[in-house]
């Protein structure tokens, strides 16, 4: 028996997300009294792979195959399911990000394994195997019993703390046979933005709503974000109006994020917006309406006009950064 964790890499490097996954897998393995095997697909050098051992990965299976250069959900799930069988995995852990969402359900069918998606805590119970998962877009949480022999859990991003439990990990290079007929995804173009803090990775997010009043007023918000090393985001009306790009929209139908700090500027806090940000560890709200629902979700609030509060806040940040 083992716990298997798929650790995604980005241009050969792991991110905090990868270590969160291994920390979580190690927690599950302790409950089951077993070991953790991590699977890495892509060109990652040994020094980077071995870092997974800091969080408790006992064994790291390294697959570096040109055939898997493109994310093809069919091919990836075929490779990971083979390893799961070989490693006799009873629990498989994947991120709940776009890659995880592409792979987990296919893996589920291959292994006849029930999926607990968007888990944010260690399993509540082993018998029956019960996980704690987000439902109703964060308005409720469910205790979900997974009845199958193999269980697949997708971990919500930034929901589980990194826990260092160093072990001497062994690296096993593997060259799996890949059924060419499964490789159906053809890449025509890649458009990547570089040098930006990704919204889903950011520890701090500064976000603007209708209270920003127009597309021209965004300068101070972007400046504050820069000073704090934060990503920028917005509410749905803002992206619908075209004041900010759609990929900044956080909320139920946009991006769902869980930063350590979310600063909501001129956002009233409609249910649909809160659904995307309610897992943030701390929320600061700046709004001119003292009855705005965002203040019910926030721990810290400033009542005031965004355009007047932002410059003062920027000055104060500059002061403490001196």
């Amino acid at each position: 028996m083992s716990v298997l964790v798929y650790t995604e890499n980005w241009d050969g490097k792991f991110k905090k997300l990868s270590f969160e996954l291994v920390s979580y897998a190690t927690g599950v393995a302790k409950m089951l009294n077993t070991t953790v095997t991590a699977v890495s697909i892509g060109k990652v050098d040994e020094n980077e792979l071995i870092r997974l051992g800091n969080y408790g990965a006992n064994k790291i299976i390294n697959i570096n195959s040109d055939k898997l250069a493109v994310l093809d959900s069919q091919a990836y799930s075929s490779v990971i399911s083979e390893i799961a069988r070989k490693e006799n995995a009873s629990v498989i852990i994947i991120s709940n990000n776009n890659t995880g969402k592409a792979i987990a359900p296919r893996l589920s069918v291959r292994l006849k394994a029930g999926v607990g998606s968007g888990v944010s805590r260690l399993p509540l119970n082993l018998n029956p195997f019960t996980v704690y998962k987000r439902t109703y877009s964060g308005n409720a949480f469910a205790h979900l019993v997974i009845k199958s022999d193999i269980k697949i859990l997708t971990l919500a991003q930034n929901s589980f703390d990194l826990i260092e439990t160093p072990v001497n990990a062994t690296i096993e290079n593997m060259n799996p046979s890949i059924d060419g007929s499964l490789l159906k995804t053809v890449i025509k173009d890649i458009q990547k933005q570089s040098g930006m803090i990704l919204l889903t990775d950011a520890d701090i997010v500064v976000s603007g709503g209708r209270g920003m009043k127009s597309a021209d007023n965004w300068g101070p918000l972007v400046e504050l974000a820069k000073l704090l090393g934060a990503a920028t985001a917005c509410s749905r009306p803002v992206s619908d109006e075209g004041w900010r790009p759609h990929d900044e929209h956080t909320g139920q139908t946009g991006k769902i994020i869980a930063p350590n700090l979310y600063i909501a500027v001129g956002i009233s806090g409609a249910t649909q917006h809160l659904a995307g940000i309610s897992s943030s560890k701390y929320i600061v709200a700046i709004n001119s309406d003292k009855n705005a629902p965002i203040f019910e979700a926030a721990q810290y609030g400033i009542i005031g006009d965004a355009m007047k509060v932002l410059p003062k806040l920027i000055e104060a940040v500059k002061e403490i950064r001196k």
Partner: protein
Amino acid sequence: MKILVCISNVPDTTTKIKFAEGNTSVDTTGIQWVINPWDELSLTRALELKDDTTSGIKSVTVIHVGPAASEPTIRKALAIGADDAIRVNAVSSDAWFVAAQIAEVIKKEQFDVIMCGIESSDYNGSIVGGMISEFLGIPSVSAVSGIKFENGQPIIIREIDGGKEVVSVPVPFVAIVQKGIAKEPRIAAMRGIMMARSKPVKLVEPVQVDPLTQIVEFEKPTPRAACKFIDADSPALLLDLLQNEAKVI
């Protein structure tokens, strides 16, 4: 080519969720049911593709797994413009059950493109679409924010961390759709509502499938502490709290 759009019947997104039967189920009293927002966007894009005579899309069918009580949601999809509908007559018990039922229908009635919302706003699972594709052994593309057809081949935009990829897969395939696929959901016009009454809804009995998961209890999110208000003229105080109390900057 034929498109199948999978639709889920969910509480309106502004609903305050309450529980019943000792927190083992959701209290459905007074809930307004709607088409899952991502499914509604999928349907909108499917209809746009059908309207475009160069796309090669000839028909749009919707499928739903649910009891007779969810007929109004199916009729709404027909009123928006779907040509016909299939209802698998069963109360959905989990994603595995739903995906298996839909895959079974697709095996009998050929579709070229299957569209599913990336998640449903009730169970937030993000699994049904991928499961359908694996049950059928066909390609799936996830986090799709754009789709068009050129010479019968799909050109798909999928979202990746920090960017987008333009990809293609052979038909048939499953597109797992997120925001951006269509600008705004299409709204039913009076003519559509009238026509929907006479559009066919095919009733299919479920196949025997045992669910793999079961929700045994619901709970409310942990309530947050009351908001501490800071005077707008003393932002330094806010920064002090963020540094020393919350320890987040």
